[in-house]
C-alpha cells in the first residue's frame, strides 16, 4: 500500500537556462490528510519548489515520485488528476463566470469540446461549496474581491479532484481576515477530504498554528523538515531567519524587531495588563526580569538604574506608578506612561545636562 503521496529523493530544482540551482538535494515526503507549509526567506526557492512539484518547471536532478511512481511515468492527464495547482497571481478573465472558471478544472475529465456531464457539474458545485463560494457561481470573476477570487481559484484546483493541492503563497494579496479564512479552509480540506495540502507562505504565525509539518528552506539551499514545535524548540527556525537580521522569540512564537536596549525593568502587577505593559516597555527598550538582566550583560550598556513600574487596580481604569532613579510619575494610560518615561530618558541622556 502506498503511504506517501509524494516523495522526493535528492531533488535539485532551479532554472536550467539560467544555470541557477535554487534547491539542493531535497528529501521529503507528503502523506495524505496533512497540511504542510513551506517557509523560508525570499529567494530561498519556495516558488521554484512549488512549480517544480507542479510540473511547470522540470527538476534539475534527483527524483520526484507521485503515488510511488516517478513523475515522468505520468501522462499529462494523469498528473492533472493527481495534482492541483494554485498560483499567487489572481488571474481574472473578464467574461468568465465563477462557475465556468471552476469548471475549467474538469479539463482532465471532459471530452474534446470540454462539455460538462452531469457528474462534472456535481463536482464543480461541490468544489465551490468546499471553499464557501457557492453564492458566487453566477458572478463574473473579474468583478469579485480578491478573497472571493482566491476561493474560486482554489475551487478550480479542487475540481480536478487531485490528491495533492499545491499552493504558491495563496495569501499574498489578502488582508488578515481573509488570510485566516484561507488557512482555516485549507486545514479543513486536508482534515476532511484526506487530501494533502502543501503551500508556501510568509504567514509564519498561521503556519505555526495550523500546519502539521513545516519545511523550512534557508538562503543557502538547506532544508529542514518537522512539526512546527520541533523546529522551534531545536532552534532551527531561529537560525534560518538570523541571516535576515530578524530574531525569533521562542517564548512568544513570533518574530521581534531587535530593539535598542535601554535598561532593565521591574513590573509589579498581574494578568493581561501586566503582559501588555511589558510589551509596551520592551517596545521602548526596557526588558523585565531575567531576560532583562541577560540582555544588559549582553549589550554591555544601558542605564544603571532599574525602571520600576507598579500597576494599580484590578480592572480598568488602571493606574501606572513608575520610578526611574530619582524620577517618579504616574499615568492613567500606557500611552502617558511611555511618554513620561521617554521625557525623562531624553533629559537624562542629554550630554550637556547639568542635572543627573
Amino acid at each position, binding site marked *: 500500500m502506498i503511504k506517501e503521496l509524494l516523495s522526493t529523493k535528492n531533488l535539485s530544482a532551479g532554472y536550467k537556462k539560467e544555470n541557477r540551482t535554487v534547491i539542493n538535494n531535497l528529501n521529503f515526503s507528503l502523506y495524505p490528510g496533512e497540511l504542510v507549509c513551506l517557509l523560508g526567506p525570499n529567494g530561498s526557492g519556495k516558488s521554484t519548489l512549488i512549480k517544480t512539484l507542479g510540473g511547470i518547471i522540470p527538476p534539475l536532478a534527483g527524483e520526484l515520485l507521485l503515488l510511488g511512481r516517478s513523475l515522468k511515468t505520468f501522462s499529462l492527464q494523469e498528473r492533472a488528476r493527481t495534482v492541483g495547482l494554485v498560483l499567487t497571481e489572481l*488571474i481574472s478573465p473578464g467574461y*468568465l463566470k465563477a462557475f465556468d472558471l471552476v469548471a475549467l478544472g474538469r479539463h482532465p475529465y471532459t471530452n474534446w469540446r470540454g462539455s460538462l456531464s452531469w457528474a462534472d457539474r456535481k463536482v464543480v458545485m461541490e468544489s465551490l461549496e468546499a471553499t464557501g463560494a457557492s453564492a458566487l457561481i453566477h458572478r463574473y470573476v473579474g468583478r469579485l474581491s480578491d478573497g472571493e477570487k482566491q476561493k474560486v481559484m482554489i475551487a478550480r484546483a479542487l475540481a480536478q479532484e487531485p490528491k495533492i493541492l499545491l499552493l504558491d503563497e495563496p495569501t499574498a494579496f489578502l488582508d488578515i481576515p481573509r488570510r485566516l479564512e484561507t488557512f482555516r479552509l485549507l486545514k479543513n480540506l486536508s482534515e476532511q477530504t484526506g487530501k494533502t495540502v502543501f503551500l508556501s507562505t510568509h504567514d509564519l504565525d498561521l503556519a505555526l498554528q495550523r500546519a502539521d509539518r513545516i519545511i523550512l528552506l534557508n538562503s543557502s539551499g538547506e532544508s529542514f523538515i518537522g512539526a512546527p514545535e520541533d523546529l522551534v524548540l531545536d532552534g532551527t527556525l531561529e537560525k534560518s531567519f538570523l541571516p535576515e537580521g530578524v530574531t525569533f522569540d521562542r517564548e512568544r512564537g513570533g518574530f521581534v524587531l531587535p530593539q535598542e536596549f535601554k535598561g532593565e525593568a521591574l513590573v509589579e502587577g498581574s494578568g493581561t495588563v501586566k503582559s501588555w505593559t511589558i510589551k509596551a516597555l520592551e517596545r521602548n527598550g526596557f526588558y523585565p526580569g531575567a531576560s532583562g538582566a541577560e540582555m544588559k550583560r549582553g549589550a554591555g550598556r544601558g542605564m544603571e538604574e532599574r525602571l520600576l513600574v507598579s500597576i494599580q487596580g484590578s480592572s480598568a481604569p488602571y493606574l501606572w506608578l513608575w520610578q526611574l532613579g530619582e524620577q517618579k510619575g504616574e499615568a492613567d494610560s500606557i500611552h502617558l506612561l511611555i511618554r513620561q518615561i521617554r521625557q525623562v530618558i531624553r533629559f537624562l541622556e542629554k550630554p550637556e545636562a547639568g542635572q543627573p
Partner: protein
Amino acid sequence: MKKRGSRLVLGLVLILSVCFLFLLSLSLGSVAIPFKEIVKILLGLPVESSAWQKIVLLFRLPKALAALLAGAALSVSGLLMQTLFRNPLAGPSVLGINAGAGLGVAVTVLAAGGGVGGATLLEGFSWFGQVSLVVSSAIGAGLVLVVIMFLSRRIDNIMTLLILGLLFGYAAEAGVSILMHLSVAERVQAYIFWSFGSFSGVTWDSLWVFALFVILGLLLGFGTVKQLNALLLGEGYAFSMGVRIRRTRRLIILSTALLAGVTTAFCGPITFIGIAIPHLARVLFASSDHKLLLPASLLLGSSSALLSDIVSQVPGQDLLLPLNAVTSILGAPVVIWVILKRKNLQESF
C-alpha cells in the same frame, strides 16, 4: 436559464443576418437585377436574360462565397491569436504571415517579368495569371510559417514569439518597399491595388481550393476549443490542467496560418475584421467561452465581410471603393464602441 435563451436568440439572429447579407450581396451590383430573377437563377430555373444568369452565377455568387469564407477565416484566426497571446490587439497578421504573403506577391508583380518599357498594368507579368499570384502569396506565407513553427519549438515564452512575428512582418514590409522603389510605376500601381483587398478576383476554379483550406483551418481551430478555454488562465494553469502547451501552440499557429494565409493569397490583405470581430463577439455574448466565441466570431466575420463588400461596390453608382478602406471605416466605430462599453479591453481576457 434566461441567459441561455437570449444567447440562442442571438445566435439565430446572427445566422439570419449572414443569410440576409448573402442574398443582398447577390442582388446588388452595377447591373440592376430584380430579386425574383435572382432566386430563379439560384434555383436553376430558366431566366429570360442569359447575361443576368452569367452575372449572378459567375460573378456575384463566387464573390459572395469568397466574402463568406474570408470573413469567417479572418475572424476565427483573429480570435485564436488573441487568446494564444492573451492580447486584445492581436489579429491574424500578428505572426507576420500576411506580410510574408504580401512579399511573395510583391516579388511576382514587381520583380518578375523582366523590364517592361512604358507597360500597361500587367504586361509580361500575368504568365501564370491568377494561379501565380495565389501560389507566390502562399509560398511567402508558408515560408514565414515554417520559420515561426521552428522557432516556437525553441522558445519558451509566447511573448517572444509574438515579438518575432511582428518583426518578421516589418521585415517583409521593408522588402516590399524596396521592391516598389526599384519598380515601374504601373507595376507598383498593380501591387497597391492588390493590397486594397478584393473578393471579386475569385472565380469558381479557385474558389474550391480557397474553401478547402478555409474549412481545414476552421476545423483545426474549432478542434482546439477546450485548450483555448484553458489558456484563458494562462499557460501555467493550462499546463497544470493537462494541456500540452507546445502542441497546442503549434495547432493554433497552423490553423491561423491556413486561415489568414489562404485568405490573403486569394483576396489580398484584408484588415480590421480579424481584430474587431472577436471583441464584438465577446461583448454581444458576454462570454469568454470559446464554445460560444468561435461560432459567433465566424458568423459575425462573414456578415461583416459581406457587408463591407456590399458597401465597397457602392450600390447605385458605378464607383468602387477599396475593400480595406471600407472594413476599416466600418470596423473602427465598432472597436471604439466596444472599448467604451467595456472601459478596459484587457479585462476581456
